């Protein structure tokens, strides 16, 4: 794949991808690679510093911090990723339908989006938690309910911008149906914008889930989650500040990796965004050279 090559030729992107892949793999394999069960309490090891047996030390109940960090990957990263993908998929489908069908369908779907977008995100999440009760599943459900409207908006605008482009008209003269148009032409054209939005909301969702767990509304004890771990470490913030390091570092690392990757992804998906090959002026073609000059000036 040419696009993957382009993505990996960017060192920061390759590093981000490697970090994320490692985190996801560790999350998936947590029960097998974690040195201890995440909720094994041993009060004798309370706030123990790092040792060979417990590489990241122990928390206020003497549980293995490394094991808890590893087990925390599932709710903090994997489930958040699933929620973002679900809302991106649903929102994109709605937005593309609205952009392509236009008319009343469009008006109806977009007013629905307006309604969703008019609620502040946290308020809606808290309302859903108030109705359905606390728990990670409910928080993620609330996120899906909130975020799809953003994806729908972006997808609709992108589809409308491209729907009258020459290449779409040409595909239609070849007899392409709506689904073919979407799949082959419009979806790839909208992908960079959607990818950026998706990675952005992955970062914010991860932080919000951690935030809500920190407040005690997300995942419930004794399960491990990074925000929860921070919340528990807070109790000993002044006497044992090092307890904050492991979960805090993991959150920062994951969110940064996702953001760097999304920047690189945008460049890699769009051939116009300054790939390795720039517009080359062909000898005897002053127009190409002039066009290349103009583009450079525009940049």
């Amino acid at each position, binding site marked *: 794949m040419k696009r993957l090559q382009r993505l990996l030729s960017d060192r920061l992107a390759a590093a981000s991808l490697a970090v994320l892949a490692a985190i996801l793999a560790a999350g998936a394999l947590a029960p097998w690679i974690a040195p201890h069960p995440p909720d094994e309490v041993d009060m004798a090891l309370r706030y123990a510093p790092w040792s060979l047996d417990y590489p990241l030390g122990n928390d206020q109940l003497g549980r293995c911090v490394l094991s808890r960090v590893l087990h925390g990957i599932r709710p903090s990263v994997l489930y958040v990723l699933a929620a973002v993908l679900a809302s991106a998929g649903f929102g994109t489908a709605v937005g593309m339908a609205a952009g392509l069908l236009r*008319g*009343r369908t469009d008006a109806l779907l977009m007013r629905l989006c307006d309604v969703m977008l008019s609620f502040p995100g946290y308020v809606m999440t808290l309302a859903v938690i108030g109705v359905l009760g606390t728990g990670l599943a409910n928080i993620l459900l609330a996120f899906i309910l909130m975020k799809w409207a953003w994806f729908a908006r972006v997808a609709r605008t992108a589809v409308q911008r491209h729907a009258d*482009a*020459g*290449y779409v*008209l*040409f*595909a*239609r*003269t*070849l*007899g392409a149906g709506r689904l073919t148009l979407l799949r082959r*032409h419009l979806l*790839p*054209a909208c992908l960079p914008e959607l990818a950026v939005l998706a990675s952005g909301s992955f970062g914010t969702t991860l932080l919000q889930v951690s935030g809500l767990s920190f407040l005690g509304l997300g995942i419930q004890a004794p399960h491990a989650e990074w925000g929860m771990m921070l919340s528990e470490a807070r109790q000993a913030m002044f006497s044992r500040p090092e307890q904050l390091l492991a979960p805090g570092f993991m959150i920062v690392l994951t969110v940064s990796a996702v953001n760097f990757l999304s920047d690189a992804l945008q460049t890699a*998906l*769009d*051939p*116009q965004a300054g790939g390795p*090959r*720039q*517009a*080359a002026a062909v000898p005897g*073609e002053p*127009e*190409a050279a*002039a*066009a290349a000059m103009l*583009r450079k000036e525009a940049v």
Partner: protein
Amino acid sequence: MLAAEGIAKSYSSRPGRRAQRQAVLEEVTLRCAEGECLGIIGASGSGKSTLGRILLGLERPDQGKVTIDGRERAHRDAVSAVFQDYRSSIHPFFTVRQALLEPLRGKRLGRAETDRRLEEMLEQVGLDGSYLERYPHELSGGQAQRVCIARALLTGARWIVLDEAVSSLDASVQAQVLELLERIRGMHGIGYLFITHDLEAAAFLCDRIAILHEGRIVETLARGRLGEARHPYARELLALFRSGLGTGTGALNADKEGKG
């Protein structure tokens, strides 16, 4: 024979309200024989692009029908298109090869055979195989329109609708592309429906010119007989053309004199 008979099309300015429908085309009838180049000239808002879309089968007329050899709805294989905006006429993420493969999808050709056809076609439009791996933003306007012409030819169509196909190009490039179109017509015996606002370009390429004014074809003239126009709008257009105030450029005339 590509024929349009009694085409009428109107759009409503607000959906669902019949009273406010605005007629774009009324009673348009035209014919274009195999291998003929018919110019369709009109100012902006005269309905010429709508007519082009109807001829391509992208829109259905409210009344009337488009037939190809007497058969309705046969556009797909018989009519192809080159559009005005060269910046958007090729998918920005497709290479020239991918763009040219679009019309060949579903036709089972081996890889070597496909490559040979693509290169041959690029050479016919004045490019070569080295362009296959380029992206549209790496092409100049003239090159992009050449690729679009090649793409239209690869569909195997018998007519190509050229909707303002040279209008957004520089004057000198316009002349080159028009000459290319003329040469390709000789090679493939393909017919053109050349939609433009530029009488000069149409006079260069077309056998006959239909003048579209406010949604109606007011006059159809053979190339050599433009002076015989009777309709006031057609005469006005010709007067502008002669006095050199037309929207066209001097490049074509200079070119013709050079040849003659």
